[in-house]
């Protein structure tokens, strides 16, 4: 009898664990992203050196730094596209590498990687299908959200640069990811579209999504909830935009960045 009970318990446990959601719910205040001691080299180039950071759900986290600082590498590590040489990355409570967690990540690469021959709708529907989405409404909704509903059936090569960027964003949003990784999403956008993008980002964060946004444009830094300043693969300083200014002892973020970068150089 005792053995039966144990068996039964095991069985129930297994069923219970199958019913449990794979990921923790957003209401849990666990960080969406935990990066622990991550280093990554390409040959002799140390792209990332001992990065530690945590990102809370519902926040917009800005990775700020000059070109070649390692921002893209860090985002690609978070997207599961690169495995760090050293260190661990937990995304939404799952340790990478984990193909399952990819269904909850939206990734917008620096270049608007879309299929030129296809329409916006075909592009978005293709990536929606790869995410396992069968819902055509989700495609329509996201096209409307980025303001492409009218031109959704024209091939992308007929679009303006800004429209292509919107297709790229729509692809990353269609499966309602809980973590959105945006690599320089606003570079080259006109001020109106840039404003619209930032309104989308803020609305997504308000809805509980976590956003990681890289930029080298200082005037975008104040739109972030938290900032990480990256230079030569290292996280120099981290905090709210206000904290960063205080640390650097200046009101101006650009000056703050230069001041901190100089300090770092002196230290190195």
């Amino acid at each position, binding site marked *: 009898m005792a053995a039966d009970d144990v068996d039964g318990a095991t069985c129930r446990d297994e069923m219970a664990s199958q019913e449990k959601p794979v990921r923790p719910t957003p209401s849990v205040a666990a960080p969406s992203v935990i990066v622990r001691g991550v280093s990554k080299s390409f040959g002799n180039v140390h792209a990332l050196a001992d990065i530690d950071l945590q990102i809370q759900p519902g926040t917009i986290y800005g990775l700020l730094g000059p070109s070649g600082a390692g921002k893209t590498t860090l985002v690609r590590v978070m*997207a*599961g*596209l*690169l*495995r760090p040489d050293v260190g661990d990355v937990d995304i939404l409570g799952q340790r*990478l*590498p*984990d*193909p*399952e967690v*990819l*269904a909850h*990540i939206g*990734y917008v*690469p620096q*270049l608007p*990687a*879309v*299929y030129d*021959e*296809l329409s916006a709708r*075909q592009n978005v529907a*293709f*990536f929606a*299908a*790869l*995410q*396992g989405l*069968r819902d055509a409404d989700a495609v329509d909704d996201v096209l409307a959200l980025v303001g492409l509903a009218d031109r959704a059936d024209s*091939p992308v090569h007929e679009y303006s640069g800004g429209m292509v960027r919107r297709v790229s964003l729509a*692809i990353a949003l269609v499966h309602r990811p809980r973590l959105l990784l945006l690599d320089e999403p606003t570079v080259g956008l006109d001020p109106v579209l840039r404003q619209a993008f930032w309104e989308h980002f803020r609305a997504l964060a308000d809805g509980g999504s976590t956003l990681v946004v890289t930029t080298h444009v200082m005037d975008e830094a104040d739109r972030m909830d938290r900032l990480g300043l990256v230079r030569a693969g290292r996280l120099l300083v981290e905090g709210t935009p206000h904290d960063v200014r205080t640390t650097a002892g200046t009101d101006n973020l650009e000056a703050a960045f230069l001041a901190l970068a100089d300090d770092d150089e002196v230290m190195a």
Partner: protein
Amino acid sequence: MTRTLAITRRVLGQLRRDHRTLALVMIVPALTMLLIGTLVRNAAVQPAIAVAGPPASVARLTVALDVLAGADAIVAQSADEVARLVDDGDVAAGFVLSETGGVELVLDGTVPGIGQRLGRVALAAGLLSAADPDPAELAAAQPAISWVRGEGGFETIDAAAPAMIAFFSLFFVFLLTSVSFLRERTGGTLERIMATPARRRELVGGYVLGFGVLALVQGAIITGVAVWGLGIRHEGPIAAAFPLVALISLVSVVLGIFLSAFSRTELQAIQFIPIVITPQALLSGVVWPIESLPGWLQPIAHGLPLTYGVDALERVLLRGEGLLSMGPLVDALALLAFASAFAALAIASIRREVA
């Protein structure tokens, strides 16, 4: 499977919108096939041979040329005229017969092949003039032929068609896959796909299905042109060609995906054509039979996938062997082995550091 089909649909959707590429795949092989067929047929037209000499000898030789060499005789008035006709290229060669039964063959040494063939005719003509048979009797004498297969005798183009179908299936699919997968790699869409839960094998599978469909449509067009456009003769059923076309294109897609990893630009991808396609065109039995290759080239020929594709299509279409009989089956297994090896390499070439 859903994701694989999503990739297949996308590949086909892209092709449908790319009319130029569609034309390349559908129309170019058909036109090439028609052109080669016409040229090969034309080259098989009987060559003209000038003949001069005593009328009785000329009449006998005319028959001998027709029967032995498949050539038409043009009667010339003198040895000088024969020489002039050969020199001007109006005839492939000339014969000057003497009253005493002597035979002189007049040749342009820059026209290959014909000398050997006509040398034997000249010999025969000399023997004929000695034996002095009745030309009418000689013409009427028809040997009894028993055909093992291919009754009436196939022409060169009939025998070449299966190899051409095999070659086109390999070539165009390789060209398209390597360039489109390269664009996937360099354009960032591959990375984007890898940032979704899609698996690498699903991606490769989607490409295989998409380009497989394309290869089958192309195969149908080429075969249609061959059979109904050129009137190509075949012993086996045409439908038996399609599973083999699908297998050849499978090898081609996975090879194209794998090799696209070694190019950074479309120009570099095209550079694989002389490296990968040309040796197969030369050594896989498309033009020259494998058995006629020098010994040291034979192992190389047997290491090329197209060799098995050509052999299988020739066995099935020319020799009328069943798809599941020994020969075609061994070829099909060899093609599958190539496909599996290239597929493993293709999947390994798509790097994603998540499992």
